């Protein structure tokens, strides 16, 4: 009986002492954390993709809370709706941002760009680009071993076995930029998604002179500059024998698409024919086609 009482008292005193020590320690070594960080983190998608430029969602949430304004902070996965919610929690207004999408700037399909050699080693774009120019005559184009598809955490990129090129699933793409970093040839670019997902871009990065580029790939940009002359908004620049369309200036008039002799400029998600450009577009389009045919022969 006595033994039980003694042990109960000893345990009770030890328990109280431990509780006091723990309480004091908790008060003394308390780390203050802004409760808003937790609130913001819950709103984020939790993909930890690093597309925002920070090391994971938690880090992004911390940066959002610390920052003075929402300028320059964007979670590409959650997009504008998520950023608005975050801004609401923090009592600020979200900065306006255009939704982006990954764009593959190579049209060197198996038919457009014949193979000149066969790579027998490990099927990895990075390894190939360290060793040599690739299996085709174009040393700038897509290698097609799918480093971008491996890098994509959202299952939005796949290599099309027929063309040998990666294809972006617009619905799934969050513009996190992982594929852009993974591509050793810098072919993939994040571009404005555009109204109704409509956009125009030059699907080539070949910096060779026209003749050389054309010999390696029938869909190459030859740097002729016709598109730049045609563009009414000065959105197109030709540098190093390759044209580039500035998506902040482009108004999607599609005049450049019609004049490109190799079909290197692509239009996406446009209706078959827009009424305003019908008359202008039909004739040059046909001309472009015939020139392409003659050069092919």
């Amino acid at each position, binding site marked *: 009986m006595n033994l039980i009482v003694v042990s109960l008292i000893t345990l009770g005193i030890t328990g109280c002492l431990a509780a006091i020590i723990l309480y004091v320690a908790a008060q003394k070594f308390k780390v203050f954390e802004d409760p808003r960080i937790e609130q913001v983190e819950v709103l984020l998608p939790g993909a930890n993709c690093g597309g925002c430029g920070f090391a994971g969602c938690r880090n992004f949430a911390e940066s959002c809370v610390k920052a003075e304004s929402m300028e320059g902070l964007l979670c590409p996965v959650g997009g504008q709706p998520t950023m608005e919610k975050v801004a609401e929690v923090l009592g600020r207004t979200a900065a306006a941002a255009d939704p982006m999408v990954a764009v593959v700037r190579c049209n060197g399909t198996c038919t457009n760009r014949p193979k000149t050699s066969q790579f*027998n*080693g*490990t099927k990895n774009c990075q*390894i190939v680009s360290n*060793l040599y*120019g690739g299996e085709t005559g174009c040393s700038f184009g897509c290698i097609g071993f799918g480093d971008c598809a491996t890098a994509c955490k959202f299952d939005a990129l796949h290599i099309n076995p027929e063309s040998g090129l990666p294809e972006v699933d617009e619905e799934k793409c969050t513009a996190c930029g992982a594929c852009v970093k993974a591509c050793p040839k810098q072919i993939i670019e994040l571009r404005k998604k555009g109204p109704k997902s409509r956009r125009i871009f030059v699907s080539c990065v070949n910096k060779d002179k026209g003749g050389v580029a054309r010999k390696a790939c029938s869909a190459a940009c030859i740097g002729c500059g016709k598109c730049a002359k045609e563009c009414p908004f000065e959105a197109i620049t030709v540098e190093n024998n390759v044209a580039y369309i500035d998506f902040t200036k482009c108004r999607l008039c599609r005049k450049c698409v019609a004049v490109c002799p190799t079909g290197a400029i692509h239009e996406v998600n446009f209706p078959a024919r827009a009424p305003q450009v019908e008359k202008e577009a039909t004739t040059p389009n046909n001309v472009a086609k015939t020139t392409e045919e003659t050069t092919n022969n």
Partner: protein
Amino acid sequence: MKTFRIGGVHPHENKISAGQKIQNAPLPNQAIVLLAQHLGAPATPIVEKGTEVKVGQLIATASGFISANVHSPVSGKVAKIDTIVDGWGMKTPAVFIDVEGDEWMENIDRSSDIKPVCKLEPADIVKKIGEAGIVGLGGACFPTHVKLSPPPGKKAEVLIINAVECEPYLTCDHQLMMEHGEEIMIGIGIIMKAIGVNKTIVGIENNKPDAIAHMKALASKVMGVEVTPLKLKYPQGGEKQLIDACIGRQVPSGALPIEVGAVVQNVATVYAIYEAVQKNKPLIERVVTVTGKAVQTPGNFRVRFGTPLSTLLDMAGGIPENTGKIIAGGPMMGRAMSNINMPANKRISGLLMLPSEESIRQEPQNCIRCAKCIGACPMGLEPYLLAKQAELGLWDEMEQHHIMDCIECGCCLFTCPSRRPLLDYVRMGKNKVGGIIRARNMKK
């Protein structure tokens, strides 16, 4: 018999072209001289379209500390300066020269007389080597004059001549020793004077007994030169491996050979130095081995830079029917080419035509953790781990595991029973980590 301590493998020698006399390749109709034939920045051309050039005339100057001069290997008129596609599909700048006759610069001594005496001061020798555009002809093409100017505070104690030729198939250095041994001995004397050492070790693998005997006989007449036969093991021709094998000193991780007092020169470079210093002849040609099991007449050819490699292939009897790969260099460290119209240059020591059944990689299997790659790695690295880290993109971990010490010799890939592409991933990781380190140093 001496050899290096850690790792190494024993590939089949296949020295098919051994003993074949060096033949001169014909002059091309148009020579395409690359401006980036060396490690470092491409040379800057000093000629323009229409300039008449003679053999040995300077056509491009070194553009930076680590760079080398380029001389015209032919006489004629400069047609254009443009880019060409090299053997690996990449663009590289080059000078195109339409060949007219074979007129040499007046100051070049073309006679076959041997000039044994060199009266130049050490600094003048190094300057002359730099002017002649000489680079290490063992494969890395590092400018020789840079290697012969040790950094302040460091003193060379011993000169090591790399006559190992550990790559299977290649025989160009072996043949050069047999035909030009005397010149090489004079060249060794010149380098010894230039760097101020009185001891030289010539390392030769014991699969070349004729070369060992020949060089030993010649070395007995020269003070301080010693010929050391080495036990057969790949990669004995690696700079750090050769130092270990010859003088038993190990170069610390990340350091240069001068740290242990050694300067290593390839035997072909020594011959080029002799020609440059004694005969005023810049580096405009080299010996290239063209070989392969099915090749009709494998041999060693002296070729002027700028000659298309296809000329050499024709001289060896053309490309055999079942050729799967044509490799520039040896089978262990060489690279398969995608374009054989590339011109000969300082980099290419051999052309190997592998039959298709030998050139196809087998399907890789899972790693069985047998650690053969670790045993084979001559730098004491862990290739299986580095390859996995590269696959996963763990660059920091790779740096901690000394990826930058890798010499890309391919022993790990050669020895792997699961045929895993270890070297592919390790090399990819090395490039990546090297880039990260350079960027970090730039920031500082």
